């Protein structure tokens, strides 16, 4: 019983920080496919080294540190043909993300509410891009628009979502 329970505890912790961890990685390495790759690698390392983790210490901090090293390893692996933030900016982003990514779970709930408030057209745009995973080029062809126009529209919807989340976050803080 104990092995599954301790395993379950670790698993719960790992599941609980996935959104924040992915956000952390994506900010340092702003290419979704690479970020996903690094997230998977980070999860593997965390799982493999689960025995090294001392319960009672900060699981999130440990996981983010592992993720940071995985990002660095990924940078080294494909450094030459990819655009990369420099070390100083990486460090600064990482230090701040350490603190902020803890809100990811809460923000995910707020995001769901904000999605419901979007105009139908905007929601459809986001859903196509993310839920259906359709590329901007394909969307542009379907909509008979230029890819850049679709990209700008998507950006504006994201801005609306950010504003909504900001407002809801402020409302929550003031309560």
């Amino acid at each position, binding site marked *: *019983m*104990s*092995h*599954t*329970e*301790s*395993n*379950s*505890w670790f*698993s719960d912790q*790992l*599941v609980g920080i*996935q*959104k924040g961890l*992915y*956000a952390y990685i*994506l*900010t340092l390495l*702003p290419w979704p*496919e690479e970020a*996903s*790759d690094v997230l*998977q690698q980070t999860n*593997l390392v965390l*799982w493999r080294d689960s025995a090294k983790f*001392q*319960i*009672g210490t900060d699981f999130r*901090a440990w996981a983010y540190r592992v993720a940071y090293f995985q990002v660095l390893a990924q940078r080294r692996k494909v450094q030459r043909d990819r*655009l990369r*933030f*420099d*070390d*100083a900016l990486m*460090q*600064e982003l990482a*230090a*701040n993300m350490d603190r*902020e*990514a803890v809100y*990811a779970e809460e*923000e*995910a709930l707020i*995001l*769901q509410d904000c999605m419901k408030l979007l105009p139908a057209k905007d929601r459809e745009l*986001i*859903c196509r*891009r*993310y839920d*259906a*995973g*359709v*590329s901007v080029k394909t969307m542009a062809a379907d909509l008979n628009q230029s*890819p850049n126009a679709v990209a700008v529209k*998507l*950006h504006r919807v*994201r801005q609306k979502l*950010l504003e909504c*989340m*900001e407002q809801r976050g402020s409302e929550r803080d003031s309560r």
Partner: protein
Amino acid sequence: MMSTSHSDELNLLLVALTDSEIDRRQFTRLQTLLSQDPDAQAYFRRYMRLCALLEFERAAAEPVSPDAANELHPIGAAIELPRQVEMESAIPSPLPSVFHSRAPSSPDFVGGPVFSYMVATVFMCLLLFGFWLYKLPPDRGSSIASNENSRRSTTSGEESIHDRPAPVVVGRITGIAGAKWSDEPNYIAPLGVGVALGRQYKLKSGLLEITYDSGAKVILEGPCSYEVDSAAGGYLALGKLVARVASDNSRRLTASGNNTVMAQTPEAVSLRLLSESTNPQIHSPLATNPSPLFTVRTPTAVVTDLGTEFGIVVGEDGNTISHVFAGMVKVKSLAGASLEGLILHTNESVSVGPNSEQIIDLGREEFRDATFTRRMPRRAAIKVFSTGVGLNEGDYDPHWQIVARSDEPDFKPRLAMVTASHMYWPYNLPTQSQWISIADGPPELPDGVTFTFRTTFQLSNVLPAGCSLRGRFLVDNHVGAIRLNGKECSVPKHDFEAFAEYNDFEIADGFVEGTNVLEIDVYNGRQEIVSGETTGMALRVELQGTALHKGSDSPPASHPKRTEKIDTTYGNGGAME
């Protein structure tokens, strides 16, 4: 939260980054903006976090049924093989749910690298998990504990594992704080692990919380030795504990007819006393039909909870001090033949000696030193100081000193100064950390000399065993030693000229209550050459520390001191209140 209104330029760059093809020039410009403008950087972080959440939330927003997914995407079906589903239902998944919930709904995604990696990772992790299951004994936590930290008094050490009866689990470990075991210092029992009847916990230091299935909680404080000898109690051979019987438990006992909701009314107590066995050894080890009342035995006494919270300290000689924080307990001396005991009320304490039948009532003054930890401590940050935070180059760092240099025996300690970075060093980040040295410059100092940097931090009302300090440093040229309170700590291996590489270190022991002194020796110059030249010397440190703050409570100040000591033999009815 940060404002979302930012320059058109930044927004255009974000469009290019997320949904278009950003070119090198644009990316360089984005980096410059982010490096120079903290607001832009904060906005970027929020924006990327939103993008990440959108990726994650898409499955949650419109879940794709397995059937639909399989129909659309044969590769996707591979994840949901019945055998794997069966495995995953039987065991906690080692993988975050995201791997399962992000069912792809687009051919682009299925064929894409993210999906491939997901499939690969699922298989890798299942493989690792299977290997882990194969390698580990069925009760990892308990098996370590049973070998080293616990014994089972009903089974001999020679008994075959196959003959051993299945353990009777009577509770769970629900809290651990800085626990070190007497026999196996490095073992940490996982939270949530079952507590089996007969299990003995020998703590060298730290805290361990056991929650019985009945709802009663016991906080053990090391050094101590405690054996779980029934479903409602244990044997404290040495050390300190606090027991708390929750109101839920009271209700549960009510259901069995042995208690009432009004647990503290005299009627309730009377009923409970009536329900109690007259045998002071009622909690014989591994009793299978335990008393409904939570009871702690010690070498000299039996302390029975009558609701709701009490503490016990057992000394080396078996002397038992009992104190009631709230509610009542009954204390019986094992040395006496009498069957009665002494009832203690809130804020009352007694001592039961090993060689007498006496129960000595303690006043508050005598009891003052016996503080108990009544709540599991919370982990909180230690106020430590990274170098140069919030300062300008040329400022003295009030939190860091240089206290010695090896070529000047009479060197007078002085504050370190934030120095401009050398061309080979990473830039100073005033909000995060900066280079410090003996002067601004960076100063050129003689090779072959060691400079000792020092910072201090305060700890109060913490468990020293539960403190940890994590840090990383940049150095020109080399850190020779790190000491906490004079005790050498492990220094990560690093090159003498790797100025731009952070080196992580961690300190897990050597902390003290009060002022703690962290010292770092910095050697100037290359490893094997003392050239007589002068070169740059500086240190840059980032620190993070956490400590377990005691939830300790002394007996309340309102505790009335009794002027007379009641010298009563065990069971003296006159002592009963």
